[in-house]
């Protein structure tokens, strides 16, 4: 009997929990309300089934418990009842499946007026590309990717020239305008996920995947990665800002284009080169530049710092230590961080650029005893 009582409590509590639970859908900010609707239909049907089956079980346990007085009924089967139950179940299944597939059909057919925006994922950051004035994204290939061409765009393709490249972690979208995200990955699987948008899809290296969404609420939302992509998976974050078309345009016009990146002054300063490398090689996925804690030591005020190593010794962060940390990161690990950094192949010139950039983030004195100053680019 206790068992029956506990079951009743569990069933009732489960239903009550649903209504009092503080954990529910994030507020919808896109056109995919129908997904929520299908989810609710499914929830209602399954909840009814759960309660019905649960209470039936409780009824049987109470009514037919062993009391010494009665005997079980002998009824091997009842084909009619079983077919009837199968029929009812089928109806329930169809009630969930049919509307679900109808909404899915919308999902796989983007509207003709959707603008294309490219999402590029890499370990462990996001970058984005807008088509620019000609309305078309230029072709790209992973084989074209270099430090100077992190998107791997095809420089011969005229459509690439005006593509707007965004390597910072901010994606802007105009409100109420359908967007088709065309997505690719440079390395492993990722997944572009904004909970408030509901729609999401994997980024697959070697192919282009896509889904569409219309943002319907202005605001700032978080972009997360939703496919395990290594140890930095939980930290692969970005922001999407949905704003009025006017605000969007003004932001867009301030962004850099591909052609501008190609014609960048070849006498670019060492510091800016270092900054580019840090972005394109994914260093910033683990090393922050503003002092915030991350997977790896922050570069803010790193240069000249007395660093505690994993083997208990101390070291002053200087040019040589920085070089070694790039070429052979596990040689002198900083205490408290996992040994997961891979060895990078940088030329001497690139190493100098990295050192310069790191110095510029520090207010400590450098090798020459002079306080580091930020070079003007």
């Amino acid at each position, binding site marked *: 009997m206790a068992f029956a009582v506990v079951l009743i409590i569990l069933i009732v509590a489960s239903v009550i929990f649903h209504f009092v639970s503080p954990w529910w859908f994030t507020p919808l900010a896109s056109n995919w309300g129908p997904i929520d609707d299908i989810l609710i239909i499914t929830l209602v049907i399954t909840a009814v089934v759960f309660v019905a089956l649960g209470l039936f079980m409780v009824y049987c346990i109470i009514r*037919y418990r062993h009391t010494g007085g009665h005997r079980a009924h002998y009824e091997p089967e009842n084909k009619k*009842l079983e077919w009837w139950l199968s029929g009812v179940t089928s109806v329930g299944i169809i009630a969930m499946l049919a509307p679900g597939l109808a909404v899915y059909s919308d999902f796989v057919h983007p509207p003709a007026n959707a603008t294309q925006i490219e999402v590029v994922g890499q370990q462990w950051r996001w970058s984005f590309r807008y088509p620019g004035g000609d309305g078309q994204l230029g072709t790209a290939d992973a084989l074209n990717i270099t430090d100077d061409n992190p998107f791997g765009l095809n420089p011969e393709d005229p459509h690439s020239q005006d593509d707007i490249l965004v390597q910072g972690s901010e994606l802007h979208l105009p409100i109420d305008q359908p967007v088709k995200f065309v997505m690719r990955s440079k390395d492993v699987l990722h997944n572009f996920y904004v909970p408030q948008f509901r729609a999401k899809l*994997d980024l697959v290296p070697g192919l282009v995947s896509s889904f569409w969404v219309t943002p319907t609420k202005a605001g700032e939302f978080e972009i997360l990665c939703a496919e395990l992509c290594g140890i930095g998976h939980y930290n692969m974050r970005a922001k999407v800002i949905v704003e009025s078309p006017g605000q969007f345009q003004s932001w867009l016009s301030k962004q850099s284009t591909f052609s501008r990146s190609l014609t960048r002054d070849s006498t670019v300063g060492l510091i800016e080169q270092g900054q580019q490398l840090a972005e394109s090689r994914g260093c910033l996925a683990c090393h922050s530049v503003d002092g915030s804690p991350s997977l790896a030591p922050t570069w803010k005020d790193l240069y000249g710092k007395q660093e505690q190593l994993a083997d208990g010794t101390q070291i002053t962060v200087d040019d040589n230590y920085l070089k070694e940390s790039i070429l052979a990161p596990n040689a002198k690990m900083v205490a408290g961080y996992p040994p997961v950094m891979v060895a990078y192949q940088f030329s001497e010139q690139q190493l100098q650029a990295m050192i310069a950039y790191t110095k510029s983030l520090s207010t400590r004195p450098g090798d020459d005893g002079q306080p580091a100053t930020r070079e003007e680019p």
Partner: protein
Amino acid sequence: MAYAEDAEVVELHEPQSFVTKYIWSQDHKVIAIQYSLTAIVVGLIALVLSALMRMQLGFPGAIEMDASSYYQYMTMHGMIMVIYLLTALFLGGFGNYLIPLMVGARDMVFPFVNMLSYWFYLLSVLVLLASFFVPGGPTGAGWTLYPPQAISQGTPGIEWGIILMLVSLVIFIVAATMGGLNYVTTVIQARTHGMTLLRMPLTVWGIFMATILALLAFPALFVSGVMMLFDKTLGTSFFMPVMVSMGQTLDHQGGSPVLFQHLFWFFGHPEVYIVALPAFGIVSDIISTHARKNIFGYKMMVWAIIAIGVLSFIVWAHHMYVSGMNPYFGFFFATTTLLIAIPTALKVYNWLLTLWRGNIHLTVPMLFALAFVLTFVVGGLTGLFLGNVIVDIPLSDTYFVVAHFHMVMGVAPILVVFGAIYHWYPKITGRMLNDTLGKWHFWITFLGTYLIYFPMHYLGFLGMPRRYFAYDNYAFIPDSAQSLNAFITVTALIVGIAQLLFLVNLAWSAVRGQKADSNPWRATSLEWQTPQTPPVHGNWGKRMPVVYRWPYDYSMPDVEEDFVPQTISNRELGISDNGDLHSHQQATTASGSDQT
């Protein structure tokens, strides 16, 4: 009990030494216990790994852990639980012990290969555990081992861990094939006189079908594992596309990560039914025995098992709705996935209809069986959310998925494992498990796991992603979610520790438990009719048993005892009719509802 008088009187070749009796044993019962104990030990390791994970999620920073270790624990926990515990226990443990006894065979048909199967399994476990001790540690790629990340920079264990994992899986698959050949061929060939297919208990049907699934599905894991090994060690590009890994363009090109997913899930989905179908069969038998009532709709139950088995091969891509595969596949797989819900639902109805008008004894095995039904209903229903492609889009890779698969594969089948052990322990050892300890174990486990996984679904509704080491400063995740995580952790630790009750019970009762007679539950199926308890080598003595009926003649009208073992003929009962199903049904309808 009748024996075939024309059965060959066999000279049974008994193993003589301690080593041939208990170590290099070809006896299916010994092999079963070897499998089960190994599976339980390795399962406890995985339980500890889950406790470590929960500590990080519930109380971040309480123990020192980095993301790398977290992902390694997560991967090993998943792989051990699914393959090395559940599959090995249901097929190698329960399958080995129960099949020959339930079909009336002396042993499995290929005892030497059966023995090898265990030792290969043990070897696969050792190879897997060795990955904790190699440079770089075990793989942290997630139990699904998706390329490219499984063998690329940025994932733990790519030096040696992933290689050992894949090699271990290959060895396990060899072991599973050797065992599976035995289980299938024994059911086909070695049933005793009168044991037709439709007189086998549903436990046998469940394990039989699960074994067929295993034999057909494991090759897919084998192929994908070998191909990934090639990609890792030989530089091939089965799954590896052009990649710029940590700034380096790699040598691979043209491979397809999605191809791996197709191969993996072609195995992976039947795998969950390899775990579920034996559980279904066992639950049917436990409920039937302890409710003193035939399983309702036996034939439909058999057909449902077969239908589920067949359908399980055409639903795999519901694990890939957001994988970037051809979107039109979504329509097909959502349909087949929701279709498979129908025979599954039928089984649930039939379990409940078995209870209806039954004579229910709430013994410990029965408690576990009923708890299975409830938790399986929850877990199965949440599967409908995920199977319906459009609903899966927001829910995939969130805690909704984690809650779903733990409920339906972790909680429900494990409850059956416990119930089954409490049920068959007296046959295996000749002693009963302690009832009080059993009830405590039951209540803590059932309520605890329900409290852990039911609320977790709502974290999924919220959108909280899975496989995250930490959740710092996400605006959309309220602080209360962290409180729930802490609650879940505490509950999980309690449930984990409570399993000690079970282990202590197992060990203590083996030597000091109340002595049981050969059929303490008064069950009808053949394994309870062995001449000795525990059964000796050869199971049946000099002569093979003869079976006259199905295994569900409980509470037959016109019969004084409320159960009739399969080996009792109608003549012995004093029933003069031809004793077929329909005359019994007519008799009961004529005499009205249950007799008091």
